Each structure stands twice: as structure tokens, then as C-alpha cells.
């Protein structure tokens, strides 16, 4: 104990250990009590070694050790490790106490998950009370690991995080790589890497070494780039396209084209993601570009779907019986017109008020579709059925893969449109309006026209998406058009980063794709959803892929600091 280092007082050290330990313990206990630990006990990530349940259980003590070591940054390395270990051990206490308590009093009726399988897991199959020291030991070890983690450099931390992420992702979504390998190589190769759904230990090690290596190599290159600013001129294709970019785009496109061929479920999920990407790109024009917070976006989606339903259905209700391809542009136009019409009453509203009124619009449209009054036209609660699937020259679009390609075309169109609009004069008008309506007006921008154009153009893709949705399901019902769609689309934009086009795509994939693919998590979907959102808002408040302007703002903040060192010339 070196007094000279001005250490934290001993009492506060123990307080940290106890506090972080108990919080970590509470996290571990929580996951036990909601049943995740027991439920995922059979889901191996690494065959025979690590289950998903273990992983969930280990988060608490690991965080306890990590936080303790961080709080004691002014202590020596050995002390930090030791107290990390102790905090991890403390994290075992809550679970131990409740298990011992359950032996005395029957609380199984209240804590349904506190069953013998769980106790079996927590005592490593040795039973009470023999397994308890082992639990304390394992948790302590995890606390030690957590403390050790704080010694790593940023580079090493990134590498470790990435490796862990890759292994968990590959193991969780193992269906996809397994199918791809089986289809394009052989089942034997797949068996050499995976066992059941889990990675074999050897392939896990190889995979993590590979990731760590790549991550290290990548950061080396990035560092080199930063030091020697004069980078080599990139090789170009056709005189203007950097070869690296072309290659990565080609890879992404090939991936998007081939992947759905491997599996029907996957194609279906990707089609759904695509629909949300289309809607996200459209709403992004309203919210991200023009700053108009619209919570009634699902109404336009419904307009698109119902237009297709009414115009193409072969049920008794329909009198038009048009082909899908004739009805599709009509659906888009209907979306645009109603987008603009719904925009007119809210021209003078901003921010929260706008959000609430548009929210009301969305509900009104749904209730109208449900009403008896309109049921001769739109079928009321029974909806519209027998919507035929589209076909081109005898080629029926009737399977998930084929719909997926249709959606992909829609996404490409919308994305292209969105990029071009963002960089256009109109894009600048939207941006100016978003930043400051009064100033925009003083620049000579017509707010009425600019707002209505945002609503109208943003609505086009929702009309398109609704049309495909109706054809895919073959029938539409009012309850498909609930508020949750508006919220999901908006969340995709927020998660991806306001105004960012790649962000919308990633956001939709995360919000729509993950829940579909992670069926195992079904019961815990919203729990995980919530945890992810909170973590994301803490660590990446600007979104997963924020726009350039935002990045630029952050960068020039750093650069700006140098310039600001000269206060006389730079001013206050």
C-alpha cells in the first residue's frame, strides 16, 4: 500500500468491489430468473464447450470484474486483478443465496425458473451445496478476466470484441453458412466445421485467430494511413471508380443475389427486410432529410397495399381485375397523392406536434379500412383476399426468392432515388428547412412546396412496398397495418443513423431480420431488443452508420480545436 500514490481509501475500494460485484450478481441472477440460462443450456455455440446459456450467465461477473478494475485505475496492476477477482466472486452471492433459500422455503411457485435444471447448471452438476464453491470460483475467474480486459490496448480490445462477435454470430446463424457450404461445397466440409448448429472447438479457435489477425492487420494499415497522409493514388477502373470500392460492391451484390437461393426461409426474411428498407428509405426522406417527424407512415403502406388489393383481386369484391404490373404504378401514385394530401393539414406544425397529428392519421386510415362504411370497397375486417401473384410473360412470381428479387429491384430504385435527391437542389432545400425553417425561408426557399415534396416523394416507396406486400401475402387485412410498422421503420432509421442511407439498410436488417432469424430467442425477443437499444444509445448515440455530415462535424470538432487555440483571432 503506497501512500504516496494517493490511492483511493481502502473503504471505498471494498465499496466498489461490493457494489459492482452485487450489480454483476444481480445481472446474472436476472438472466437465471427469466429463464434464459436454462432455456439456452442446450444451445451450444462451441460444441461441447460453451452454450449460449453459459455466455448469458457469464456476462454479469465479467462486467463486475471489468468495472471494478476500471474504478480502481489508480491502484497497482496486481490489486486491480485481485479486486476484479473478488468482485466476480461476490457476483455469485445473489444466486447462491436464493438457491439456499429455495432449499428451505418452497418459492418455486413464484420463481418458476428456479428449477432443478437451473440449479444443476449453477452447481455444475454437483448439487447443493457441493457445487457452490465451484460457482464462486468460476465467477471469480470471470471477474479476473474482466479485470484483465482493462489492461488491453484499444487495438487488442477491438480485436477481442470482434473475434467474440464473429464467433457468436456465426454460431447463432449457423444455418446460413451451413446451407451455403452444403450447397456449393459439400456436406463433409460443413461437418468439418460445424457440429449440429455449433462450431467445433478447432474451427472456433481458427476463426477467432483469423479475426484477431485481420483486425490487427486492419488497424496497422489504418495507422499507416494516418501517419503518412500522402497515400498512393488508388487504382481506378474506367477512369473514375476506385478498384477496391468496385470489388467490395461486386461482392455485396453477388452476396445479395446468391444468398436467398440457399434457403426459402432466408429468402422470405430477406424479402421482408427489403420491404422495410424501402419504407425506411422513403421515411428517411421525410424524417432524415427534411426533419418532418411522421408517425403515420404505415397509412401510405396501407394505401399501396389496398390499391393493389382493390384493383387486382379476383374475389367477388373486385370489379377491376387489373394485372399487377398495371396496378403497381397506380399504387405508387396513390401513395404519392395521399402522402401530399396528408401533408397539407400539417404544414404549419413542427416537431412533436407533427408527430402526434401524423400518428392520428395512421390510426384513422386503419380504422377506416376496418369500418363497415367502407367495407363494400375494402372488405372491412375480412379484408381483401385472392390477390393473384404477378407474372411476367408466363413467368410467375410466386415463391419467396422471386418476390425477393422484385423487392431488391424496388430497393435499388429507391436507394438510387434517395442518393440523387439528397445531393440535389431539393435535397439542400430539405436540409436547410430541417436546420432552421426561418432561415431557409429567408434564403428564398418555399417551405410549403418543399414540405409537400418531401411528403409526396417519401410516400412513393411506401406505396411500392405496400403493393408488393399485398401481392406476396395474397390477401390484406386491416390489422396488418398497425402503428408498430411505423415505429419499426422509424426505429430502423434511428438505429442506422438519421439521414444515412446505408444506415437505414443496416437498421432494417437488425430490427426486422434478427427477430425473424433468431427464433430461439422468441420469448426473450423484446428483452434483447431493449438491451440492444439501451447499449446502442449509450455507445453509438449517432446510430450504427451515421451520415458523413455528422462524422465530418465530429472530425472538424477535433481539427477545430487546433484553430481555436488562437483566441484573439478566432474570437469567442
Amino acid at each position, binding site marked *: 500500500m503506497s501512500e504516496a500514490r494517493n490511492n483511493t481509501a481502502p473503504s471505498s475500494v471494498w465499496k466498489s468491489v461490493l457494489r459492482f460485484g452485487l450489480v454483476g450478481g444481480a445481472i446474472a441472477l436476472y438472466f437465471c430468473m427469466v429463464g434464459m440460462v436454462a432455456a439456452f443450456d442446450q444451445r451450444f455455440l462451441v460444441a461441447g464447450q460453451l452454450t449460449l446459456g453459459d455466455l448469458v450467465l457469464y456476462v454479469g461477473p465479467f462486467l463486475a470484474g471489468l468495472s471494478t478494475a476500471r474504478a480502481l485505475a489508480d491502484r497497482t496492476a496486481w490489486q486491480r486483478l485481485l479486486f476484479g477477482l473478488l468482485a466476480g466472486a461476490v457476483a455469485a452471492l445473489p444466486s447462491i443465496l436464493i438457491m439456499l433459500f429455495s432449499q428451505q422455503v418452497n418459492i418455486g411457485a413464484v420463481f418458476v425458473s428456479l428449477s432443478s435444471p437451473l440449479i444443476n447448471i449453477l452447481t455444475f452438476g454437483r448439487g447443493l451445496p457441493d457445487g457452490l464453491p465451484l460457482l464462486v470460483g468460476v465467477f471469480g475467474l470471470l471477474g479476473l478476466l474482466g479485470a484483465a480486459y482493462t489492461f488491453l490496448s484499444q487495438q487488442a480490445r477491438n480485436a477481442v470484441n470482434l473475434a467474440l462477435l464473429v464467433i457468436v454470430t456465426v454460431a447463432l446463424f449457423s444455418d446460413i453458412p451451413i446451407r451455403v457450404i452444403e450447397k456449393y461445397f459439400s456436406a463433409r466440409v460443413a461437418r468439418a466445421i460445424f457440429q449440429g448448429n455449433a462450431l467445433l472447438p478447432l474451427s472456433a479457435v481458427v476463426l477467432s485467430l483469423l479475426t484477431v489477425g485481420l483486425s490487427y492487420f486492419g488497424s496497422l494499415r489504418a495507422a499507416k494511413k494516418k501517419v503518412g497522409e500522402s497515400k498512393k493514388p488508388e487504382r481506378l477502373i474506367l477512369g473514375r471508380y476506385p478498384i477496391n470500392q468496385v470489388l467490395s460492391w461486386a461482392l455485396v451484390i453477388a452476396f445479395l443475389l446468391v444468398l436467398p437461393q440457399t434457403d426459402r426461409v432466408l429468402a422470405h426474411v430477406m424479402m421482408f427486410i427489403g420491404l422495410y428498407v424501402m419504407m425506411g428509405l422513403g421515411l428517411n426522406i421525410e424524417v432524415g432529410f427534411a426533419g418532418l417527424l411522421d408517425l403515420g407512415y404505415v397509412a401510405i403502406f396501407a394505401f399501396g397495399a389496398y390499391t393493389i388489393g382493390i384493383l387486382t383481386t379476383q374475389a367477388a369484391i373486385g370489379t377491376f381485375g387489373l394485372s399487377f404490373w398495371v396496378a403497381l404504378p397506380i399504387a405508387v401514385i396513390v401513395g404519392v397523392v395521399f402522402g401530399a394530401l396528408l401533408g397539407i393539414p400539417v404544414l404549419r406544425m413542427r416537431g412533436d406536434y407533427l408527430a402526434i397529428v401524423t400518428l392520428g392519421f395512421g390510426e384513422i386510415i386503419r380504422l377506416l379500412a376496418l369500418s363497415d362504411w367502407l367495407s363494400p370497397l375494402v372488405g372491412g375486417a375480412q379484408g381483401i383476399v385472392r390477390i393473384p401473384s404477378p407474372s411476367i410473360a408466363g413467368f410467375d412470381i410466386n415463391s419467396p426468392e422471386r418476390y425477393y428479387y422484385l423487392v431488391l429491384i424496388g430497393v435499388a430504385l429507391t436507394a438510387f432515388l434517395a442518393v440523387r435527391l439528397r445531393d440535389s437542389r431539393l435535397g439542400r432545400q430539405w436540409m*436547410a428547412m430541417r436546420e432552421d425553417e426561418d432561415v431557409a425561408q*429567408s*434564403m*428564398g426557399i*418555399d417551405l410549403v412546396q418543399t414540405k409537400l415534396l418531401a411528403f409526396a416523394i417519401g410516400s412513393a416507396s411506401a406505396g411500392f412496398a405496400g403493393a408488393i406486400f399485398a401481392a406476396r401475402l395474397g390477401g390484406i387485412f386491416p390489422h396488418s397495418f398497425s402503428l408498430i410498422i411505423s415505429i419499426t421503420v422509424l426505429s430502423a432509421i434511428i438505429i442506422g443513423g438519421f439521414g444515412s442511407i446505408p444506415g437505414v439498410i443496416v437498421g432494417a436488417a437488425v430490427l426486422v431480420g434478427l427477430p425473424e432469424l433468431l427464433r430461439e430467442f422468441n420469448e426473450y425477443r423484446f428483452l434483447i431488443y431493449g438491451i440492444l437499444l439501451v447499449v446502442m444509445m449509450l455507445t453509438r448515440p449517432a446510430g450504427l452508420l451515421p451520415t458523413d455530415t455528422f462524422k465530418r462535424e465530429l472530425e*472538424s470538432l477535433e481539427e477545430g480545436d487546433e484553430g481555436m487555440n488562437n483566441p484573439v483571432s478566432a*474570437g469567442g
Partner: protein
Amino acid sequence: MAMLEVKDIHTYYDNIHALKGVSLEVNEGEIVTLIGANGAGKTTTLRTISGLIRPTAGQVKLNGEDLADYETHELVYKGISMVPEGRGVFAQLTVEENLEMGAYSRNDNRVRDDIENIYTLFPRLQERRRQVAGTLSGGEQQMLATGRAMMARPKLLLLDEPSMGLAPILVEGIFDTIQNINKEGTTVLLVEQNALMALSIADRGYVLQTGEIVLSDTAKKLSNNKMVQKAYLGVD
């Protein structure tokens, strides 16, 4: 005939009678200043002139034409440009992009030249042309907002409190530039709390008190006026 003529305007914020019959005139080539304390109605007067608020009575005329029929965004095309209070630069755009936005109303190919002119007027902006406007200092943002307004090639420039929140040395610089802009042929209506500085560059001035013009005279006479000296110039 005066270039800008404000005739007995009354403006309300809900029930609050903010302007109680304000009249003023700005002649071509002049710098006219409107001074007054906090809450006197200076900004309200400017916002009424630029159409952001509509008066319940009275008229605003530009070269004899009533502006009541025009929307705010159309006034730029009539030759009125405003630098709003608090500057209102587009924080996420670079300095140069902000200047380009200022030329939004224009449809000619001299925009580049004008940007260079702004840079000669404010060399500081040229140094920071690629920097995002939100990261500029207050003084630089004021320069940018003024430059951006000039990009519309206005005949009449409305300035709302350009000295607000700036260090005294910077205020002097800004006021010098306003004088230069005026010499180049732009008429200026300057709303200021800093009466001393405003009167030092203005030709004429109006004193606004709780929504009414209480004094109007040449700038020189106003700065010698006992009441103005006492209330606004801090001279006992």
C-alpha cells in the same frame, strides 16, 4: 421616396401587443439603425418586415409596393436579405456550402465570383471554407451569416443584433464590414442593443421603447441626445 417604408404597424403575439404603431423609413444607400432595450420590439419589427410575422394593422412597403402580398421566401427575390438573430448558420454544412445556400435564390453564373468577394470581405472565412459551420466561433458564425445574406445580392440588408455575444474587438470588425458593405451600395437596416457602436456607423437612427418609436433623428444628434446618452450609452 424611401426604399423601405414601414407605416404604423401593429403586431401581436397572441394577446401581447408587441408593436404599437411603429413607423420608419430607410432611404436607398443609408445605414439606418433601430436601437432599444431588451424586449422593446426590435426583432419583432424585423420579423414583421420580412413577413415571418404578419402585422394586424399597418403597411410595409418596398419602393412603394406593399409587401403584404408576398411570402417571406419571395422577399429575397425582391431584394431583401436578412441575417437573423442568433445567426442561424447551417451547422452541418461547411462554410462554403453555407455561402452557396445563400445564393439559393439566384440563377446566374456569377456565384463563384461572389463567394470570392465574400472571402475578400471576410478572409477568416476563406481560411475555414471547408470547416463545418457549427464548429466556428461566434464571431466567425456572424461573419458567415452576414456573408451568406450578401450572397443573395440584396438591395436591402436586414441585420438583427450582429454584436450579440461577441467580444468587443470582433464587434468592431463586424461593424467595419457593415460599413464596407454599405459603401458598395447595399442599404442596411441594423437592429442593435449596442447603441454606441450602431450610432457610430449609422446615418440615421430610431429609438424603440416598449413597442413604440420614441425618438428619431440623425445618428449624430441621437448620440448627443441626453435621454439616449442616459438610457443607452451609459453616460450620466
